[in-house]
C-alpha cells in the first residue's frame, strides 16, 4: 500500500485556530505603506529565511539603496515603477493572533485594487506622511473605508524623522484627520507617530518619540478585532443554486446572517412563497442536526416543491427582507466612463443579478476634495448617491439593518464598475408575504393521471406569428380531449386580453407576460392537466425562465415554419400593418426572434399536414412520459 490514509485524530492542529485578523494598510501614494509592512515583518520576525539578504543583494546589484518596501514589491513592473500597483497579502504573527496584512496601492490610478484589498479587511491602518500631511488620497481612502463598512481604523503618522519628531506637527495632522473621519462616522482607534524606515513607534517606543504615550503600531494592530459573523441578525440565505444530482432537490447557499434549523418555517423572497426546511444536507455525513449560523455554506431541502431560483433570499417568516424594484444607494464608481442618469447597468446584490437603470444622481463628489457636488454624473473614483430602478423585483435590506444583504455591486459590460451601500428600499406592490398560504389540492396526482391517462404537462409552442402555433394547439387540444385527456389551451393573445391586459410589448413586459403564462400553465400541469401554450415568446431567456418554472413538465415545440411562409399567411394581418409601419414592436419582420436550441420537437407546418404534425406531438408526449398508451403502462407509472 503506497498511500497514506490518516486515521481519525482529535487533537486541534497547532497554529490554525488562533484568532486571525485581516488589516488593510491604506493612504496616499509614497506615504510609506510598503515600508511600514516591510518593517513590521522584520520587527515581528516573520520574514522567510534569506529574503532580506536576497533583496539587499538585488538592491546592491541594481545600485539602489535598500528599501523596506522591496519586500513587497515582488513584481518586476512594480520595482521598475517604484509603486505598488496591486493588492498583496502578507501574514505575520503577534503574541496573541495571526495578522494578514493587506497592502493596497496608494496611487489614484489603482483605486480599484485598493478597494479589492480593503474590502477583505476587518480593520484598517491609514498612513499619513508627517511632512506632506493629509492629502487627497488620504481623504479618499478614509471615505472609501466608510463606504466599505470598515469601522475600525488606526492612524499612523509616518516619516516623523522628516519633521524632527515634532509633537506639534503630529497633533496638527492628528486633529485634521480625526475631524475628517469623525464626520464620516469613523472614530480612529489610535493615532501613532512613527518612522517606518528607522523603526520608531512600530514595535517599540523610542526616545525620539518620548512625548507619545499611546500604543505602538503592533499594539494598535493587536487591538483591532476580527469581524464577527452576523449571527444575531435575522436569517438571510441568498440562494446560489438548486442541485438535483440525485433524488434530493437541494437549495444551496451561504447563510449571510442569522441561523436556521430543520423544521424552520421560511419565506422565499422576493416572491413571498412559504415552506418548511425539511433537512439540512451535507457530505460525507447527512442530514445534519442542530442549528447552523452565519458564515456556513449549507444545502437545505424543503417540505414542498415550489419554484425557487438563484438570487432568491430565504428568511424566517415575520423577519423577511423587503422586495423592491427601487433602491437608493451610496456608491463609489471605478469605471472610466462616468455613471450618468439614464444609464443601463447590471446590479448584483447577494446572488441576484438584475438589469437596472439609473433614475437619479445626487451628491456626486470627489471624496478627495469633498466639494463641488454634482447631480448629473459620478466620475471615475468619485462617490455619490443614486436611485436605481430594477427590471425585476429583488430582495434587499437597508445597509443599517443588514450589511450583507444591504450592499450591491454594479457591473458594466461584464466587469465590476462600482459598488455601494443600500440606503433605502421602496416597498414593492406585493401583498405581505405571510398572508400567502398555498392550499394543496385534495386530489393526489395519480388519481388524476389514472382518469386522464396522462401526467400534467406544459406544452409550449413557440414560433413566428403565422407559423401555425394556434392551429396546432387547437388540433392537439381536440386530439387529447378525444382520448379522454384534460388539455387546456392558453393562447398568448387570449391572455393578453384579460390576465395580462396591463402589459405592453417592451422587453420587460414581454418577460412578465411569459412569466405569468408559465405560472398559470405550471399550476394547471401540477393539477394533472396538459396546458397547451401558444405564444410567439421570441426571447430565449424568457423561455428558459418558463422552463425553470415548469421544470420537468416542460415540453417545448418549435414551430419552425419559414419566415416568408408565415408572412404570406398573415392570419391576423399583422405583417401587413408592420410593413406599412402602423404596428410597432412586431416580432416577425425583424431579427428579434431567437429560435430554441434544445426544443423537444421542431415542426415546419409548411411541409406537413396539421394531422401529421399533431401525430408527431402526440408521439413525443408519449415518448417523454406524459401520455400513457396502455393501461399497463399506467400501472408501471404509479
Amino acid at each position: 500500500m503506497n498511500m497514506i490514509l490518516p486515521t481519525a485524530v482529535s487533537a486541534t492542529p497547532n497554529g490554525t485556530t488562533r484568532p486571525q485578523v485581516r488589516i488593510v494598510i491604506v493612504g496616499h501614494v509614497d506615504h510609506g505603506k510598503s515600508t511600514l509592512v516591510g518593517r513590521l515583518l522584520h520587527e515581528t520576525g516573520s520574514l522567510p529565511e534569506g529574503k532580506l539578504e536576497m533583496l539587499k543583494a538585488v538592491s546592491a546589484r541594481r545600485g539602489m539603496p535598500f528599501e523596506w518596501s522591496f519586500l513587497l514589491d515582488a513584481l518586476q513592473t512594480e520595482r521598475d515603477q517604484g509603486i505598488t500597483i496591486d493588492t498583496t497579502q502578507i501574514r505575520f504573527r503577534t503574541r496573541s493572533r495571526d495578522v494578514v496584512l493587506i497592502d493596497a496601492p496608494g496611487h489614484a490610478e489603482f483605486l480599484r485594487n485598493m478597494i479589492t484589498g480593503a474590502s477583505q479587511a476587518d480593520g484598517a491602518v491609514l498612513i499619513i506622511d508627517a511632512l506632506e500631511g493629509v492629502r487627497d488620497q488620504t481623504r479618499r481612502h478614509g471615505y472609501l473605508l466608510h463606504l466599505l463598512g470598515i469601522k475600525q481604523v488606526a492612524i499612523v503618522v509616518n516619516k516623523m524623522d522628516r519633521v524632527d519628531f515634532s509633537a506639534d506637527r503630529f497633533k496638527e495632522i492628528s486633529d485634521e484627520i480625526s475631524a475628517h473621519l469623525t464626520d464620516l462616522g469613523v472614530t480612529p482607534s489610535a493615532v501613532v507617530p512613527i518612522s517606518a524606515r528607522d523603526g520608531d513607534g512600530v514595535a517599540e517606543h523610542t526616545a525620539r518619540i518620548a512625548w507619545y504615550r499611546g500604543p505602538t503600531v503592533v499594539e494598535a494592530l493587536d487591538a483591532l478585532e476580527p469581524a464577527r459573523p452576523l449571527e444575531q441578525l435575522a436569517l438571510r440565505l441568498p440562494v446560489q443554486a438548486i442541485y438535483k444530482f440525485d433524488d434530493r432537490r437541494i437549495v444551496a447557499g451561504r447563510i449571510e446572517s442569522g441561523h436556521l434549523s430543520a423544521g424552520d418555517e421560511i419565506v422565499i423572497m422576493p416572491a413571498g412563497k412559504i415552506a418548511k426546511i425539511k433537512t439540512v444536507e451535507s457530505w460525507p455525513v447527512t442530514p445534519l442536526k442542530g442549528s447552523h449560523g452565519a458564515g456556513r455554506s449549507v444545502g437545505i431541502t424543503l417540505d414542498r416543491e415550489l419554484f425557487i431560483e438563484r438570487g432568491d433570499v430565504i428568511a424566517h417568516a415575520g423577519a423577511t427582507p423587503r422586495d423592491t424594484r427601487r433602491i437608493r444607494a451610496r456608491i463609489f464608481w471605478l469605471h472610466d466612463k462616468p455613471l450618468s442618469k439614464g444609464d443601463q447597468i447590471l446590479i448584483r446584490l447577494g446572488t441576484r443579478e438584475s438589469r437596472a437603470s439609473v433614475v437619479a444622481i445626487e451628491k456626486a463628489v470627489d471624496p478627495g476634495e469633498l466639494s463641488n457636488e454634482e447631480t448629473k454624473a459620478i466620475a471615475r473614483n468619485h462617490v455619490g448617491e443614486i436611485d436605481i430602478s430594477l427590471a425585476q423585483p429583488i430582495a434587499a435590506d437597508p445597509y443599517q439593518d443588514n450589511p450583507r444583504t444591504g450592499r450591491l455591486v454594479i457591473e458594466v459590460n461584464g466587469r465590476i464598475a462600482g459598488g455601494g451601500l443600500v440606503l433605502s428600499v421602496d416597498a414593492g406592490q406585493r401583498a405581505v408575504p405571510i398572508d400567502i398560504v398555498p392550499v394543496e389540492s385534495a386530489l393526489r396526482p395519480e388519481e388524476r393521471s389514472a382518469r386522464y391517462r396522462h401526467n400534467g404537462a406544459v406544452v409550449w409552442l413557440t414560433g413566428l406569428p403565422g407559423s401555425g402555433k394556434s392551429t396546432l394547439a387547437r388540433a392537439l387540444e381536440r386530439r387529447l380531449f378525444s382520448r379522454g385527456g384534460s388539455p387546456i389551451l392558453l393562447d398568448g393573445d387570449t391572455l393578453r386580453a384579460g390576465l395580462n391586459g396591463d402589459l405592453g410589448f417592451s422587453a420587460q413586459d414581454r418577460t412578465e407576460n411569459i412569466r405569468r403564462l408559465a405560472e398559470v400553465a405550471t399550476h394547471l400541469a401540477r393539477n394533472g392537466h396538459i396546458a397547451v401554450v401558444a405564444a410567439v415568446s421570441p426571447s430565449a431567456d424568457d423561455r428558459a425562465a418558463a422552463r425553470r418554472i415548469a421544470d420537468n413538465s416542460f415540453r417545448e415545440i418549435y414551430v419552425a415554419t419559414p419566415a416568408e411562409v408565415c408572412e404570406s399567411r398573415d392570419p391576423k394581418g399583422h405583417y401587413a400593418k408592420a410593413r406599412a409601419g402602423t404596428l410597432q414592436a412586431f416580432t416577425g419582420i425583424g431579427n428579434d426572434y431567437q429560435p430554441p436550441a434544445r426544443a423537444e420537437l421542431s415542426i415546419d407546418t409548411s411541409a406537413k399536414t396539421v394531422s401529421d404534425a399533431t401525430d408527431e406531438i402526440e408521439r413525443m408526449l408519449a415518448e417523454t412520459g406524459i401520455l400513457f398508451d396502455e393501461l399497463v403502462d399506467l400501472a408501471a407509472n404509479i
Partner: protein
Amino acid sequence: MHLLNSDSAKDRLRGADLKSGSAVPQIFADGRLPPPSMDHLDELEAQSIYILREAFARLKKLALLWSLGKDSNVMIWLARKAFFGRVPFPALHVDTGKKFPEMYTFRDRFGKEWDLDLKIEPCPPIDAVDPTLPPAARSAARKTEGLKWALTKYGFDGLIAGIRRDEEATRAKERVFSPRGLEGGWDVRDQPPEFWDQFNASPPPGAHLRIHPILHWTEADIWAYTKRENIPIIPLYLSKDGKRYRSLGDQDITNPVASTASSIDEILTELDGTKVPERAGRALDHETEDAFERLRVAGYL
C-alpha cells in the same frame, strides 16, 4: 384564507417579553439556541465552498486542475462537500509525464475512488517551449503549453486551480476569479476590482477564467484540514531518511527539504517554527528574480 394562525403570531413574539437586565447575556430574537461557532478551518471551508458554487453557477464549462498535490486534493474534497459528494465537472490532470511514481499510483486509485471525471492531458515536448527561459522554468512551462492545448480541445471557460496567496509573492496579488487573455495570459496590470464576494465571471469569448477557491488558505491550513477531514495524501510529503517534500512537482525539478516530520502533526509543528519558504524545493522559483512571474504572466498557475 389569509389569516395568521395563532402559532405563527406567537412565533413572531417569541423573546419579546424577556426583561432587559436578564442574566442571559445575549438575547436571540427568535429564542433559538445559538449555533456552534465556527473555527478557523470551518470559515475557510465555507468560503471555498461558496466560491466553488459561484463558479459552477456562473460558468458554462468548468474543469478542476488536479495536480495530485496536497492543495488540489483538499480542493477536490471541498468540491465534493460543495456538491454533496460528487464533483460535477471534470478533474483535469495536465501530465508532464515526469511526476513521481507515487503520484501516478495516487491518481489512478483516487480518480476511481472519488468517482472523478478524470481527464489526463499530455504536455508538448520541451522543444516546443520558449528557449529563452532558464532550464527549470522552461521545463515547467511545458505545463502551461499542455494547459493551452487542453483549453483548446475542450473549450473550458473556467479552470479551478489550487494556488494560495501565501505560497509566493505574485500569487498574493491574484483575484479569486481571475480573467485570462485569449492566449491564457494574466494581465496583472489590469485586474478588475473584486469585493464583497462578487466576482467578475464574464470572460470575453475565447478567453477563460481561473478560479482560485483556496487562495486564502495557508500551507498550515491545508495540513490541518487534511488531518481533520482524513484526506489521503501522497507519502512523499512525510519524512524519510531525514528529508521530505513540501511541495510536489516534476521529479527532475523538485527537491526534498531537510525534515524529520513523519506525520501531519509533526508537519504542523515544523511549519509553526520554520522560516524556509514552501517552494524552496522548486528549482524554477530561484533561477532568476522574475522567472516565476514571467511564467505566471504567460499563464502558468
